[in-house]
């Protein structure tokens, strides 16, 4: 048998069975797209940062520092809430980023599930924004609780917004737990995408439920008196949105790139694994042939 032969003419007499043996150790028809010995050049040498993330990171730090200075030093305390009002430079922006994270996660998941737009990119974006969303969600609950203690006298109240945020937090913690289960990446991406889309579909139901429920117990009258903000307070609050928005983008981008690197790493692993698997066949074949004496 010619070890170089990749294909042989169809065996006409045998009911049209064409024979295409893959010779041991000769490549065969399958050629790995990426050779295991030559990994593709990483787009961001030395990690996940490049010029874009550096600019994002530096501007996050600058705007955050500016917000802190304006919020803690320049702006005056509130007449009613006193120093507590300074949380308005943190809590609303953090909560918005939490919802942005979950919303982005759901949209990316929807794009992944839609067959025409299916791409690993959407899955990576969903993973990145879901994770960053959970971080901001926990921050939202903590800052909300800190704000609530002096205002309401309790750390926790069944305020509808707080309740729904806690529910979303629990749902997305489940989502992250699912994402960690591993296995076939495409199957996992589909499962996770379904979870993200369905739980965001439920947000209106959750909202109605928690609002009606809270209204039964008149917690809404306890709801924090929103301070009147104006002038420098308003600018500071807007700046906090810019700072946290930049920080959000910065984190998501880094997290996205980690996903890209992980994908690339496992793809390299796949090609190496295929070569190994075929080599293992080559050894066995030689042994089989020697013992069985099968001739073609």
């Amino acid at each position, binding site marked *: 048998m010619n070890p170089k032969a990749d294909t042989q003419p169809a065996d006409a007499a045998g009911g049209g069975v064409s024979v295409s043996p893959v010779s041991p150790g000769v490549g065969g028809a399958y050629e790995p797209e990426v050779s295991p010995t030559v990994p593709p050049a990483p787009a961001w040498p030395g990690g996940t940062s490049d010029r874009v993330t550096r600019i994002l990171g530096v501007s996050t730090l600058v705007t955050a520092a500016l917000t802190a200075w304006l919020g803690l030093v320049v702006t005056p305390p509130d007449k009613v809430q006193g120093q507590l009002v300074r949380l308005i430079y943190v809590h609303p922006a953090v909560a918005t980023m939490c919802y942005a994270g979950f919303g982005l996660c759901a949209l990316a998941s929807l794009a992944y599930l839609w067959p025409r737009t299916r791409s690993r990119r959407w899955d990576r974006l969903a993973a990145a924004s879901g994770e960053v969303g959970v971080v901001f969600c926990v921050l939202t609950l903590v800052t909300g609780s800190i704000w609530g203690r002096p205002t309401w006298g309790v750390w926790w109240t069944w305020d509808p917004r707080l309740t729904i945020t806690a529910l979303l937090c629990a749902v997305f913690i489940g989502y992250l737990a699912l994402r960690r289960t591993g296995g076939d990446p495409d*199957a996992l991406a589909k499962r996770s995408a379904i*979870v993200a889309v*369905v739980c965001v579909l*439920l947000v209106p139901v959750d909202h109605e*439920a928690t609002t009606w429920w809270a209204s039964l117990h008149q917690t809404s009258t306890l709801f924090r008196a929103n301070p009147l903000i104006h002038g420098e307070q308003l600018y500071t609050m807007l700046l906090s949105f810019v700072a946290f928005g930049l920080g959000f983008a910065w984190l998501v981008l880094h997290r996205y790139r980690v996903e890209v690197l992980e994908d690339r790493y496992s793809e390299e692993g796949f090609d190496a694994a295929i070569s190994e698997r075929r080599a293992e066949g080559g050894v066995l074949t030689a042994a089989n042939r020697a013992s069985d004496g099968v001739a073609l």
Partner: protein
Amino acid sequence: MLGMLLARRRWNALWRDALLVSSKDLRIEFRSRVTTTQVAPYAVLVLVLFGFAFDQDQNLLTKAAAGLFWVAVLLSSLLAVQRSYAIEATDGARDSLRLSGLDPAGIFLGKTLAVVAELLILEVLLGFGVVVLFGIQLHDPALLVVTCLAASVGLAAAGILYGMIAAGLRVRETLLPLLILPVVAPVLLGATQAWMAALGTAGGGTDGWRWLSLLVSFTVIYIAAGSLAFSILVEES
């Protein structure tokens, strides 16, 4: 015209598959009696434990009866869903279900129907339990029954969907409650409020039927999402 005919055909095939799967699941339950010998005693035990936890305070128990009833149902529904997937996991049954070419939406609806039937039986039993143990009176039986129906379909549909998502994973037993419990929170809220209205234990101003509409919208969302998602979930390998 032809499109309508085809849609009707697919619709009929869908329900045929759903009934086939649900009757198979129920037959297995009937034969193995896991629901009646394990899940039902568990559910009643949960009610008894509530009695211990509330320190025999009959007023408190009567007031909380609706909520306790639905917590017990929720916990039992987790077991029912896990059982529903355990019977598919034995000896390659999941593969043969995939090989059979059944409509995935039919599989979803069928497994949901079977769990709904089990939950309704459990709810009757637990209903007796709360009447006997917590001393409650039934004011509006129609609302009670309709709430049970809507909430059971919602719980079963959500459970079967997340059960399929967790199916085949090594960590499915621990992951499943984490996935299901936060999303069924509105069912617990809605069903409890509707029951409180129907039992007359609610404060003034609770409109039970309004809460029922919330349960129905939850259920519709999960039936639709599950039917669509199952074709994706069954096909992944």
